[in-house]
């Protein structure tokens, strides 16, 4: 195991050993190791990497270190990014929230990951660093499939930059239990009053979290942006459009029929709450 203290050192270690695996809080990796689903020879623990720490709130953007834990998100971004704070609060147990990180959640790209749908709705940019330098990947381009992130060899997620938007944010998640539960569907929604845009992120219902563009466009067109009101039936129509965007997963946790239904309900409620806020 390597424990680099700086970003350059971390990247050097990862470049030198292509089999090395970066470790955030370990809440995904250790479970996979113990279940025998993964076997890892070299772990690069990133907790001590200074460049991954901290939250900076500027006038135009909030900048989050990839090492920020769920507990850190809950405590530090509640005022600026309430949807992200709510998503963090809904993750696992207190122990898991003290360990799991923003970067780790993005990097492991689990179907049920809670950050990506929120970052989609927040229009976030993900900063990654590697041997070839630093670049920014739009949140929507980061994950190609379950466990498959668009990172080059030796690259890690370093920071997430979220443009500040005026307007309500919502996050809703449904699972089979009230806490410590893997999501069956989750929906994040941002009503961007300045840009007059509706942005929605849907997670855990499909192999990769997505933005239901057609539903967003329809909602934007139907909202009276000056009064921030809409036809009372709009949320229901919006929910139906979101659920129709693409076919949902069918697995042990929930049938496709239930997921389609749940996504519609969550999206409807998210928009209704945002319009009522």
């Amino acid at each position, binding site marked *: 195991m390597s424990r680099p203290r700086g970003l350059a050192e971390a990247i050097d270690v990862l470049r030198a050993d292509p089999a090395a695996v970066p470790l955030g809080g370990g809440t995904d990796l250790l*479970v996979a190791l*113990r*279940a*025998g689903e993964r076997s890892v020879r070299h772990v690069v623990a990133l907790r001590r990497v200074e460049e991954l720490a901290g939250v900076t709130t500027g006038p135009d953007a909030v900048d989050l270190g990839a090492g920020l834990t769920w507990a850190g998100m809950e405590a530090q971004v509640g005022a600026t990014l309430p949807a992200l704070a*709510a998503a963090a*609060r*809904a993750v696992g147990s207190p122990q898991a929230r003290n360990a799991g990180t923003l970067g780790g959640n993005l990097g492991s790209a689990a179907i049920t990951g809670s950050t990506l749908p929120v970052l989609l709705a927040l229009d976030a940019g993900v900063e990654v660093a590697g041997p070839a330098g630093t670049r920014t990947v739009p949140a929507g381009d980061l994950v190609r499939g379950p466990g498959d992130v668009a990172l080059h060899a030796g690259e890690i997620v370093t920071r997430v930059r979220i443009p500040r938007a005026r307007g309500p944010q919502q*996050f*809703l*998640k*449904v*699972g*089979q*239990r*009230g*806490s*410590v*539960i*893997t*999501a*069956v569907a*989750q929906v994040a929604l941002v009503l961007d009053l300045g840009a007059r845009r509706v942005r929605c992120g849907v997670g855990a219902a499909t192999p990769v979290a997505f933005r239901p563009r057609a539903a967003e466009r329809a909602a934007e067109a139907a909202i009276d942006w000056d009064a921030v009101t809409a036809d009372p039936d709009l949320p229901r129509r919006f929910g139906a459009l979101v659920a129709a965007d693409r076919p949902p997963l069918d697995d*042990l*946790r*929930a*049938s496709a*029929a*239930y997921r389609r*239904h*749940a996504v519609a*309900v*969550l999206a409807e*409620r998210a928009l209704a*709450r945002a319009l009522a806020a």
Partner: protein
Amino acid sequence: MTRGPRIGDPAPRPDGPDKVTGRFPYSSDLRAPGMLWGAAVRSPHASARIVGIDPAPALALEGVAAVLTADDVPGRPTYGLAVADQPAFARDLVRHHGEAVAVVAAATPDLARRAARAVAVDYAPLDPLTDPAAAVTAAPLHPNGNVFRHLIVRRGDVAAAAADPDLVTVEDTYEVGRQDPAFLGLESGLAVPAADGGVDLAVSTQFLHADRDQVAASLGLAPERVRLTLAGVGGAFGGREDLTLHLHLCLLALRTGRPVGMAYDRSESFVGHVTRHPARMWYRHRATRDGTLVSVEARVLLDGGAYQSTSAAVLANACCFAAGPYRVPHALVEGWAVRTNHPPAGALRGFGIPQVCFAHESQMDALAAALGVDPVDLRRRNALAPGDALLTGQRITGTAPAVACLDAAVAHPLPAPPDDDPLRRPGGTGLATGPGDVRRGVGVAMAFKNLMYSEGLQDLSTASVRLAVDGGELVATVHCAAAEVGQGFVTLAQQIVRTELGVDRVVLRAADTSIGEAGSSSASRQSWMSGGAVAAACAGVRDEVLARVAAGRGGRGEAFALRDGEVVSRDGGLRLPLAEVVGADPVEAVRVFTHADTAPLDADGQGDAHVAFVFTAHRAVVDVDPALGSVQVVQIATGQDIGRALNPLAVTGQLEGGIAQGLGLALLEDVVTREGRVATRTFQDYLVPTALDVGDVVATLIEEPEPGAPYGAKGVGEAPTLSSIPAVVAAVRAATGRRLRRVPVRPAHVALGEDGVAPFVVPGGPAAPPGVVTGPEGPLAKPALTDPPGVAELPGGEGGA
């Protein structure tokens, strides 16, 4: 010495602080110098022929000490609690996913697991038999056949009773999923080879002597050469009645000559121990217009999995108690427990009754709706009372406070309406449910269950109490093989000795097989049986003490009594400190305790098969988000028949824990199988209730002392799990109007209204027509089925199917 808790006092657990602070040594904490670690090689298939097993790749790893297979079992190749039909290792045929094929010993746990993966097993997969309804007529999976038991309970004349055209009839089909014991302390133990060629095994278990006898038979050793000691148990609930790693550990220790430890992980545990029997049930209730039950017909099909375990006794419970705690003049119950290629099912808290309780209480609600009467009134009107007869014809001679339980449960004030705390709403931290999305529902259910073993099974417990003086202070030492699995026998034994002998310092020896058996910590029996044995041993000590005093004075023993640590004469003229009487010559008594005999069931399922009965009732209040199907249990109120609360603190623990396990089955807990393979691997998908999910538990204890029971107490380990299940489901139905004929209720069942329950198929008979009101026709209790061999010793190995 401070005065310790007596019978009736709230007695905190002696091991409580250590358990809460992480210091309690569980069976997984056992270590020995030079020890090896074992790991099992398990079948990835539900059904397969074993073409070959090559241990060479495992043995080639440095640090691997042994690989054992069926060829290495020196004694009986099979084991089992009732019938030895389960192989120590599959030899030619694998009958369930996760069945052990071999076991390895290696220097470290990790190496052992790697070595287990390295053993090359060549399987030829077969089509698994996964439909219990098809098992009766399918090709036998085992030389003993596919029917563990077929049982009929016939009372009155159902057909004649049904002729009355004025009766109201309700009929439906119900299903129960596969609940796992899900104890937190996974299977683990340590076996140490002994100089006499025997073996010492420390293991977490519920029944040391049954383990010992099965292990000894397969090791080919005399039972006294196999010595078991109870190691720290992290929960049991029935899932530790059967052997798991016991025999593998002992085989490895004897082969390697070194101590061997073993510990399952959660995925292995799901396939390595018994679960509750998944059930399919068809019911038809008939009642008069004024709400008096006339008849109950039921068919109960239990999926027993690949091996018998306790399936026969579980089926008897399901059938004997199929109608619930009600007067039913006419009944016809037919039950099957069958073999499939699923992992074995066996004992689990409630032992066959949770399944039928869900069905009979759902039926009672349906009947109340059909009659247009209050469901509580319907239950009260038909509830059993002392002197009434069960479906088996047995009359209740003890207490039967069914109505008192029901009245107490519904007398609790209802909880406040939903508040503003979003975490208390359905869906909790997901924040998906708004204040306007919640509907509240209330449901009520009741149940009863037998205490102790039934059907004439031998049932006894042994205890010794030794009174000595140590440093001028009296010390009582208790020895009993009763397994402490969390139920509180360790506390109760001390309370009994303090009460009977007036001695405050009570030491409990480790439970082991150096004393006679205590029976299993199951069937809500240890307070009655081992509590009775300890009380009897105390009486023996007292008699000896009084005889000593009398002998010393040339008088008669009964002239004296033992009171608060003193021997006093009846007239009060003489007071002798007990310590003085005992002096340097300790007093010891060993006693065996039994209960009144029970009888087998006859061909019509009639007979006095049970000892005593415990009654219970639950009222559940739930908040439901009907659109998403999320359910939040707000409150469970219960009235619990207890006879007498010997340790009110432990009773509270049993009520809260049992209710949590009941609502777990109602809403969450299900081991999912796909083509026979267990798909649920971890607690990420096997969902047990968290503290947030359980809601408030409010309880009233009904204390009517049970005649014949030590201290009048009834065991309460199982009752809280029974009617909490249907009460929760009834509350969800009340909130949503959904039918919900399967547990656990899934969000999709509520949100989409589809519970996935197919019409009941009569095993070996014609398929039932679809629909609610028509149901399966054709005669109940066809005589075509033959019973399986009663006690089948498998000749020279377990053979082929």
